[in-house]
């Protein structure tokens, strides 16, 4: 399947792009992260401490165990600091 993967803040800076399309068969977010980390060092670095990374699926906050079934957009970012 094809996923739009988007990155924000320092996750975006470490990975080097704000958005990319990823061809993957990952079943869950955790699987996707594992797959990305195996690809290149910049991904490995960005996801080295996943406790510092949050994930949203189709623009709704989710978690790393969540399945990717029917998901079109996955977003990774640090804890939010608005307000």
């Amino acid at each position: 399947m094809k996923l739009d993967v988007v990155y924000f803040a320092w996750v975006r800076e470490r990975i080097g792009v704000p958005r990319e399309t990823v061809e993957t068969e990952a079943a869950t977010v955790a699987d996707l992260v594992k797959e990305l980390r195996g690809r290149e060092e910049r991904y490995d670095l960005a996801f080295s401490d996943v406790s510092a990374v949050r994930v949203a699926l189709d623009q709704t906050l989710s978690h790393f165990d969540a399945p990717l079934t029917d998901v079109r957009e996955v977003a990774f970012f640090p804890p939010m600091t608005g307000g």
Partner: protein
Amino acid sequence: MAVRVQQHDFDLGAELTALRAGRTDIGALVSFSGLVRDDSGDLEALELEHYPGMTEKALAEIEAEARARWDLNDSLIIHRYGPLKPGEQIMMVATAAPHRKAAFEAADFLMDFLKSRAPFWKKEHGVAGAAWVDAKEDDEAALKRW
């Protein structure tokens, strides 16, 4: 009931005036505005990044939750993005209610959830370089109050 995400500044006074204009059912109007603070004088700009699409959705959900929990006449959330100078307005929430307690609590609630659930990230650009602002553990803990 409105959410606005924008780069340009807003007029807090005009927004508060508009919320109550022509109405006689509001007893209490509370506003919170967040400003770019620079105690040290080292801050050149505060950059706000956000997640277009999700931001509006998250803010609308937070606002709807406040409207469900408290008896409010109206509410407003405005949040800016982009580079901001020290002293500039970052965002505002306003709550109008028949009674004081609801207006205060709902504004406090909006701020707590906005801080930890709306996809904004702050980066400080200073004379010595740039750094992303860390989320505070307190902010996440604050959600448990509600």
